[in-house]
């Protein structure tokens, strides 16, 4: 089989696209998770606080807290994880405040996103970058 210069270019371009695919796939997974929660509605900033460390030494257990007064539910999304959903808090009538904290796994340095659904149906969003020294995805 003879490679012409044109073939080589096409194969090269294909390889580059294939190499970029996983990153794109992760980004769209996170977008999908956001869209699934908001139903495609626009989000605004402010009114929600996301507490996450700037640097997490161990990606297996990263403390994270969210607080959004007046929220009905809050979702936490780890944009760089193979499965970006972390958890969803749904607050009942006896919730003392619309805040909660937990611990999550992060596969590597990435953005953590919190979106709150307010009682009036609007959505607010906060994001924070967490640097992870050792990822928490096993392997």
């Amino acid at each position, binding site marked *: 089989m003879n490679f012409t210069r044109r073939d080589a270019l096409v194969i090269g371009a294909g390889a580059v696209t294939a190499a970029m695919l996983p990153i794109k796939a992760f980004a769209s997974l996170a977008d999908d998770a956001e869209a699934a929660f908001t139903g495609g509605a626009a989000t605004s900033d402010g009114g929600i606080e996301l507490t996450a460390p700037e640097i997490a030494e161990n990606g297996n257990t990263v403390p994270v807290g969210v607080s959004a007064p007046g929220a009905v539910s809050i979702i936490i999304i*780890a944009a760089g994880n193979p499965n970006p959903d972390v958890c969803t808090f749904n607050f009942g009538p006896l919730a003392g405040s619309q805040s909660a904290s*937990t611990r999550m796994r992060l596969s590597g340095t990435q953005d953590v996103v919190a979106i709150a659904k307010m009682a009036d149906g609007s959505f607010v969003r906060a994001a924070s970058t967490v640097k992870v020294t050792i990822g928490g995805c*096993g392997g």
Partner: protein
Amino acid sequence: MASGVKPRVKVPKTAAAGEVITIKTLISHKMESGQRKDSDGNIIPQSIINTFTCDFNGQNVINVELHGAISTNPYFQFEATVPESGEFTFTWQDDDGSTYTDSKSIAVS
């Protein structure tokens, strides 16, 4: 049922009526994420707690949906309003169908 699952809950024993209290819960569970591989390279299937609920006298306080990215031994801290004396019930639902419960009573003075 996953082995060695033990829920632990911290609730104050007494509170004033209408007071907002902080509740901390921890349950020992492996929370197998479905991303890890065993020594033969086979993916270990996901096995996690998928729902956590806290109720007070039948009224919901918080309901949490968990996914694979929640750490081993899931920990939650949240706040609850206590209108009267009663009992908090905590429920964790496992992927394998089993349910773990714990309850704590609180006296309103």
